[in-house]
């Protein structure tokens, strides 16, 4: 089992994604990557699907990654890391390598929820020893804020623009964390950069477990969320405290809520600071907020029930 995290020790660790990458100010993704890589006690090899994180961290001849890193196309980070991990196992078997190496794939929500779901599902089913991390910012931010199946209900995007006829996205957000849990893999978790200790603990736990693991991490995007650059961590905290983004894990089928807000805040607190939800505060769109609240309440209720089921 990995050692217990101490801030003092963490502060001495190398940051494995260097400054100077071209991610926007206030972007959640590099923060997530930094925390994930910092959490590992092992050397890590990462795969990255096409997206903001990928294009902005490997501009022409440069790379921001201080670890071995591979990119293939948009739809197949999970398949790419599968290949790398399989080769590693083969080399290990032949006695050509003896180090313990961990494999992590990073994908955005477009490359995970949508086009990459098939390859992700395949990798999980085959049982590779890998951790897939989805940094979920809720739209195709790299190509200009088009809706994805991770876009929250009611959000304004460029391909589902809010106007007089359509109040933004009218489809439900896909619950990917649950889909992954349904794969019955050893470990699935949801995390947020606002709760860094929780996030890093989950990564450490995941890396100690053999087999396929999945983590869904909320990643604020001030361009797409239409929020202030210095509000990112606050927004991810609000997402957790409103239970829009509940922090929980499913280990070997057992659900455990890892953070329980002292007082569950109304969803408006999360929606209001974001321009993408501005239109929801018009009187005619009140029903969307109401529905969002109902959906959140239902999911939160469900999670608590599941947790209680295993606690008894």
């Amino acid at each position, binding site marked *: 089992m990995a050692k217990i995290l101490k801030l003092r020790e963490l502060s001495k660790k190398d940051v494995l994604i260097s400054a100077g990458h071209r991610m926007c100010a206030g972007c959640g993704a590099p923060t997530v990557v930094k925390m994930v890589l910092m959490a590992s006690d092992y050397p890590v090899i990462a795969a990255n699907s096409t997206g903001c994180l990928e294009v902005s961290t490997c501009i022409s001849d440069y790379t921001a990654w201080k670890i071995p890193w591979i990119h293939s196309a948009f739809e197949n980070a999970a398949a790419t890391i599968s290949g790398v991990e399989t080769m590693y196992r083969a080399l290990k078997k032949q006695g050509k390598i003896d180090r313990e190496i961990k494999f992590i794939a990073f994908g955005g929500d477009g490359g995970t929820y949508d*086009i990459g779901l098939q390859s992700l599902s395949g990798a999980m089913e085959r049982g590779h020893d890998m951790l897939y991390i989805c940094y979920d910012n809720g739209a195709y931010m790299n*190509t200009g804020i088009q809706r994805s199946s991770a876009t929250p209900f009611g959000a304004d995007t460029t*391909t*589902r623009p809010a106007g007089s006829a*359509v109040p933004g996205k009218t489809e439900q957000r896909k619950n990917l964390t649950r889909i992954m849990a349904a794969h019955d893999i050893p470990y699935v978790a949801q995390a947020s950069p606002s709760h860094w200790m929780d996030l890093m603990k989950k990564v450490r736990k995941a890396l100690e477990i053999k087999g396929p693991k999945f983590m869904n991490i909320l990643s604020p995007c001030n361009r797409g969320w239409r929020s202030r650059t210095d509000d990112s961590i606050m927004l991810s905290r609000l997402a957790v405290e409103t239970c829009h983004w509940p922090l929980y894990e499913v280990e070997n089928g057992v659900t455990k809520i890892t953070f329980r807000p002292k007082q569950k805040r109304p969803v408006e607190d999360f929606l209001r600071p974001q321009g993408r939800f501005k239109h929801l505060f018009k009187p005619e769109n009140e029903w969307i907020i109401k529905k969002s609240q109902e959906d959140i309440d239902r999911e939160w209720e469900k999670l608590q029930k599941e947790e209680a089921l295993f606690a008894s």
Partner: protein
Amino acid sequence: MRGNEVIAEAAIQAGCRFYAGYPITPQNEIPEYMSWRMPEVGGIFIQAESELAAINMVYGASAAGMRAMTSSSSPGISLKQETISYLAGAELPAVIVNMQRGGPGLGNISGSQSDYFQAVKGGGHGDYKMIVFAPYSLQELWNLTKLAFDKADEYRTPVMILGDGVIGQMMEPFIPTPCIKSGLPEKDWILDGCKDREPRVVKSLYMGDGELGMRNNILQEKYKTMKRKEVRYESYYAEDAEVLVVAFGVVARIVLSSVIKLRHEGFKVGLFRPVTLFPFPEKEIFMLSGDNRRFITVEMNAGQMVEDVRLSINGRSEVFFYGRPGGSIITPEEVRDKILLLLNHQPYLVKTDFNKWDI
């Protein structure tokens, strides 16, 4: 309006009421425009979960009789190849827009012409062709998009509009000419429910003995008809040109400005611009070839159309090539330099030294 928006609006005017797309730069303005414009005209916009899904939605919508379109850029078009082959096999009309970007792989996001082979030689499997339009101005983008829908229906074939990142992002004046009804007969093959009529079949699977061969012959006959009737091109100062440049799409614009300048300076140069890349203006180029004329093909790739130019000319003239791969723009000055080189009868070539034909 940008080029991408011109395509979207032209498609709407042409009666396209089904669009399925997926984000990829540099064509995002097309799905974005469609997302608000389609509901206005009672059409359908779907953002699919992948390029594969988008083109297959088009396949379904087309079989149901809709004028349907999808768009993407190079890596996304690669993903669509399977269904493009199916569309050709099942003889379903569809319009596919490729706003090319630099490749191979993820490449970059600037304009390129490196998908010429993929578009005209059949990027998918099987013996198929599709009509490929290469617009070079927003006016042509407008006109050809509308024409693409008519030709797709007329021949029951996928039609590709092969643009690039430059033309998609470009703005310039154009006249949005009203759409003239094509006068095509009603589609008597669509799958819209067979109550009170014989069931119809749309498919590309032919397992019977010799069936697929016959099917292919029918397709090839269709492609021959296209070759006879659908060739489009433009030529500028070609008649007495000593050096004739062949270029398509946005490169033709760049070349044209050098050609006009050189003409003013008294040099005998011209430009030949294929508008349809399939069917390729083979005969027209052959007719222009001869001993006293040198050809040069200029492309934003490592040399693709030049092969078709050489095949058309069949050794009657020397054909040189100048290109820039990887999504970088050619300047009129570069083209001018290359033309002047050829006018001065340089480089002197041994005909079998093929490496030196690229200048």
